[in-house]
């Protein structure tokens, strides 16, 4: 009975909230107001049912938490899915399958699909890059898109003025991104938490405003057009072939990013980043140089953004400051949070979901932001650690010990 009352209240509340949107419609051509009363019913019934599902999910979540608390030994038992993930041979087969699929993708689907895939892959690399800063080192960065812009403008300007090619600019973009990471890193070494977030937010804004207003340098809001596509031994390529080419470049970059970030994660440096995230004071007391560690996290995170910035400019052949708004930073951050902080596979999944879903659900494009927001709220309540939570590497000793005894 109590549940019924609650659900009724929820339904009424949502009817009230969505009233202006769902019921009132002003027909501007005839200058009359249409009242769509039927919609009230739909909204009411939908949210009435949803609130029951919601409550059921909450109860289950609490039950699970209680079970975890009472049974000392089986806290945070990995789910079936995570156990599967840890199975090495299955993982390799899965990866091979994915790689094969990725390689034949442009031949199976048309250019449009490849184009969408390229932008998704760009976001995968961006997410993995930001994952270093936010997911591993725990430094909240709300201005990450600034480094993306640095890479894109580096290629666009160098190409425009000096005619430098894509392959020269790719490492240059990465290096410039890293340098900007260090520039941002210096003033914020002492900051943490909210203050850090605000400063990075400001940094992102500054870069955009500079690009918009320093017209002699960046050509202002009108942007830079006719940027060269990547070349392949001077071959002339039509748009379709070029898209396929960029697609393969992106696949290679994604693989490179996965390997590098995966190795960093379980290295001396990666551990220092995670320690910094977990407890700054204990981290320095254990002999870790905080300044160096923070800087390397910023620089390396920014590096990837600079690099794919170059690819982005080459792909679209036209860039202007409008591509580098705060919204982009927010989306990249959402990818990391939604996918799972620190988890490489999670971030890849997050990027695919957040970038591909809107493309394939164009029919619902009006509701995109509502779905996006609702998904975020649901995620944070039921799975705050992200789609795939970060699993730390397990170390085997027995073999090692025998080895050391033999030596």
């Amino acid at each position, binding site marked *: 009975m109590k549940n019924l009352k609650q659900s009724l209240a929820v339904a009424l509340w949502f009817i009230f909230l969505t009233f202006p949107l769902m019921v009132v419609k002003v027909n501007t051509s005839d200058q009359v107001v249409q009242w769509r009363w039927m919609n009230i019913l739909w909204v009411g019934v939908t949210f009435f049912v949803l609130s029951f599902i919601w409550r059921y999910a909450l109860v289950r979540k609490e039950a699970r938490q209680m079970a975890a608390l009472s049974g000392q030994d089986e806290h945070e038992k990995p789910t079936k899915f995570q156990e599967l993930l840890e199975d090495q041979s299955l993982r390799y087969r899965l990866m091979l399958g994915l790689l094969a699929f990725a390689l034949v993708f442009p031949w199976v689907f048309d250019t449009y699909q490849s184009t969408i895939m390229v932008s998704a892959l760009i976001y995968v690399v961006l997410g993995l890059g930001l994952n270093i800063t936010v997911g591993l080192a725990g430094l909240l960065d709300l201005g990450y898109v600034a480094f993306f812009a640095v890479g894109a403008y580096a290629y666009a300007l160098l190409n425009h003025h000096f005619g430098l090619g894509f392959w020269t600019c790719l490492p240059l973009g990465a290096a410039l991104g890293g340098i900007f990471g260090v520039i941002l890193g210096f003033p914020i070494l002492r900051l943490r938490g909210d203050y850090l977030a605000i400063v990075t937010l400001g940094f992102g804004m500054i870069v955009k405003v500079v690009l918009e207003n320093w017209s002699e340098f960046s050509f202002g809001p009108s942007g830079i057009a006719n940027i060269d596509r990547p070349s392949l031994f001077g071959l002339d390529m039509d748009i379709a072939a070029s898209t396929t080419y960029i697609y393969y470049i992106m696949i290679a970059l994604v693989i490179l990013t996965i390997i590098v970030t995966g190795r960093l994660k379980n*290295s001396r440096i990666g551990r220092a980043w*995670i320690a910094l995230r977990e*407890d700054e004071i204990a981290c320095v007391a*254990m002999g*870790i*140089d905080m300044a160096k560690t923070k800087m390397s996290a910023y620089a390396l995170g920014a590096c990837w953004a600079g690099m794919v910035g170059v690819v982005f400019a080459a792909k679209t052949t036209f860039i202007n400051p409008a591509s580098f708004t705060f919204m982009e930073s927010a989306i990249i951050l959402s990818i990391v949070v939604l996918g799972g902080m620190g988890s490489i596979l999670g971030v890849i999944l997050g990027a695919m979901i957040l970038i591909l879903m809107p493309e394939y659900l164009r029919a619902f494009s009006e509701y995109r932001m509502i779905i996006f927001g609702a998904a975020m709220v649901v995620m944070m309540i039921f799975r705050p650690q992200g789609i795939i939570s970060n699993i730390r590497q397990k*170390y085997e000793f027995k073999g*090692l010990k025998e080895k050391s005894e033999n030596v």
Partner: protein
Amino acid sequence: MSDTQKQVLLEVKGLTMDFGGLRAVDSIDLTVSAGEIAALIGPNGAGKTTFFNCVTGIYTPTGGDVLLHPQGKPTRRVNGKKPNVITTLGMARTFQNIRLFSDMTVLENVMIGRHCRTNTGLVGAILRGAAARREEQETVEFGYHLLEQVGLAEFANEYSKNLPYGAMRRLEIARAMATEPFLLLLDEPAAGMNPQETDELDALICRIRDEGKIAILLIEHDMKLVMNISDNIHVMEYGKKIATGTPQEIKDNPKVIEAYLGEEADA
């Protein structure tokens, strides 16, 4: 302990720490010699932890000197130095309120302690060459042996947040040991432990001193533990040092009884 002159490892002279108008630590002199277990006791709020934080570089003291005399190396004055520099010089610490890296495994916590004794850089980590792999393996082994010493080897791949309380304290000690210190500062290592765990800790601390050749300075409220293992005891009250001596001398010191032990007699 023999009466022969032991080499002094840590020498604190007139250490003072002011927070605004509050003098938390007031010109403390203290030395710790090689092979010594020294204890720092005093009522709550006497400034013991602040003293630790000054010595280990978490705070910059407002006055006085902290001198480190590593064996076979030149003396270093370390006030105002960063904590990581001081740890690298050979003085490690644990925390009163446990500060483990909770989302890392037990072994990784210890491996963090190895950070300042290893040197694989970014490039090494990415390329994962022979040198980097060897160093990584050495780190794992070193960490594992330390865990065996403190009796946590079976939990090596467990997240440290899932450990029982007493084990967390031991892990903190293991993590500090991983930095290969010559002097270990323990901030209330027995807090929250039951009598049996305290006895084990007692044995562990003595073992660290004897086998690891590490001197120890500890803050502790458990008088049984302190009287058992300490060679020298320093007593603080209201930021000042009021007594120094062997456990027996401290027990008989009227000032100490009044300031500290006396409170217990009242209760």
